[in-house]
């Protein structure tokens, strides 16, 4: 393959390039850590403050409500930390700054660059969940039914959920133009949160059967229900096999669609 006159160049191991890409994202995330924590924890914790602390004390919600709320709050923190950490920089990168180009020129297939972004998104989602869990638990006080016996399930659901939303971030980050970024929050994130079974268990929607099946298109539903299955197993929740299957299928779907749009944005 090499033309005469040019020195032979051994291929650079992809794993090594991946680590360099990951170290870059870790360094940048470290520099922005206070903002990152504020971004991913403020909204869930405000919600906990109102619905998990104030309203129960006022007697507007039943004391047991916190059991339904905690897994949902975790789901929101985890999902949107992953989503935003991938999507937001990517919208700017492809829309305006073109900063990602130096990484697209790295001597690896561009899919590795996208894959690294997804992995970095997963890690940030997990960190967000780890930060929010103890704070939320402290603010809400004792929570009936909290029983993290299935640590394996908790870790598995957490990773799967973060992967789903990280790949979803890849897709959104490559189809949204910078000017539409406000729309992303208004038309995608907000409805997802409200119809994501985060603030109420899915089974509660028995009261409105149409809603119960309509919300199944929302990936957050599976994250919330998966969290319920993992940390409040004695309370009503979707079967864990269904949650696992749904999250796996969604991750695969978002990765495929996201890679297609990523490639289209990266290569003219």
């Amino acid at each position, binding site marked *: *393959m090499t*033309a005469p006159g040019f020195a032979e160049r051994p291929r*650079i191991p992809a794993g090594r390039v991946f680590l*360099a890409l990951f170290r*870059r994202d870790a360094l940048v995330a470290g520099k922005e850590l206070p903002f990152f924590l504020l971004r991913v924890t403020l909204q869930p914790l405000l919600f906990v403050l109102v619905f998990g602390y104030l309203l129960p004390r006022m007697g507007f919600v039943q004391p047991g409500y916190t059991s339904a709320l905690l897994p949902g709050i975790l789901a929101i923190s985890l999902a949107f930390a992953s989503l935003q950490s991938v999507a937001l920089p990517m919208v700017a990168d492809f829309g305006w*700054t073109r900063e990602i180009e*130096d990484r697209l020129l790295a001597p690896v297939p561009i899919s590795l660059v996208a894959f690294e972004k997804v992995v970095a998104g997963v890690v940030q989602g997990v960190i967000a969940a780890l930060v929010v869990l103890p704070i939320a638990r402290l603010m809400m006080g004792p929570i009936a039914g909290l029983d993290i016996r299935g640590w394996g399930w908790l870790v598995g659901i957490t990773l799967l959920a973060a992967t789903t939303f990280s790949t979803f971030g890849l897709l959104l980050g490559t189809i949204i133009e910078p000017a539409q970024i406000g729309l992303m929050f208004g038309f995608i994130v907000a409805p997802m949160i409200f119809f994501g079974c985060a603030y109420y268990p899915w089974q509660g929607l028995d009261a409105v059967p149409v809603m119960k099946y309509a919300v199944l298109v929302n990936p957050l539903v599976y994250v919330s229900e998966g969290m319920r299955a993992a940390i409040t197993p004695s309370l009503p929740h979707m079967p864990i096999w269904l949650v696992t299957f749904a999250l796996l299928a969604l991750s695969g779907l978002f990765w495929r669609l996201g890679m297609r749009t990523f490639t289209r944005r990266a290569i*003219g």
Partner: protein
Amino acid sequence: MPTAIRTERLRKVYPPPSGRRRPLGPPVLAGEGGGPPAAGEVVALDALDFEVQAGEFVGLLGPNGAGKTTTIGVLTTRIRPTAGTASVAGADVLADPVGVKQRIGVVPQRPNPDRALTALENLLFHAEYFGLDRRTAGQRARDLMQRLGLGSRGDARADQLSGGQLQRLMIARALVHEPDVLFLDEPTVGLDPQARLALWDILRDLHAHGRTIVMTTHYMEEADQLSDRVAIVDRGRLLAFDTPSALKARAPGGTAIELHLDGDAGPTLDQAGALPGILRAEAAGDVLRVFAERGGDVIPALLRVAETQGRGIRDIRLFPPSLETLFISLTGRTIE
């Protein structure tokens, strides 16, 4: 001498703009070489054949939208050609993009540093993306920053650098992994004259050390001063490719004079062409263009010709013998 770059019948057609996806640069509508384009399609490259030898400094010269950036985009694997082949240092851009990327350094048209990192970190991480160990990366990064006059700016964030410094950082980044071929896309646009000359010195130095360099520009002087060979491109096609002196010798001779009239230039053409000292005359719209041995001598006569045809003069422009006069004679228009 080995071939650094080779393209054969390279063609790039952009689909009709759908409002969301837009082509790079404003290419022109034209449909030759590969059949007529469908409605709304934009032909950015039209059967480009092009070869660069190792160690050469080649200037790609043409107006905005000529296809220069698309050419660089294809050669750097960032734009997928519609047809034809292209290879860099023996690696095919479609079959082996990773092999190409490993061998090239790219300085983009608009500086795109990693703004979350400092200047030095930009170089260190880029080196690591190319598999360098941290010690070597650190050494090379510091050497380059020293050589390019960025020695004291290592800890600066990218947005704290001046335009010239930023451009030199982009060059340092493109060199830190010691590529075989360096691509620069309009590297001096937006630089003040002093920074531009400093950049020229850097490029001359790199070339003197044997680096293969391909640079796009729409500045005649820049292509003339720096390049071993200049490729003149317009509307996606290679019009001429030779040394600057050979190209200048090919120019129709003399100074190009453009008279911008207040009406159709057609009626003035015959009389103007018959004037003594005029080598060639052409009319395009309101513009009468002549090539003359000595520009100053024929202007009064040209003015009289315009007057007898009842045309007023809006503007007079002179182009001394140069790549620009060649460009005008090849394309019928000025480059900028």
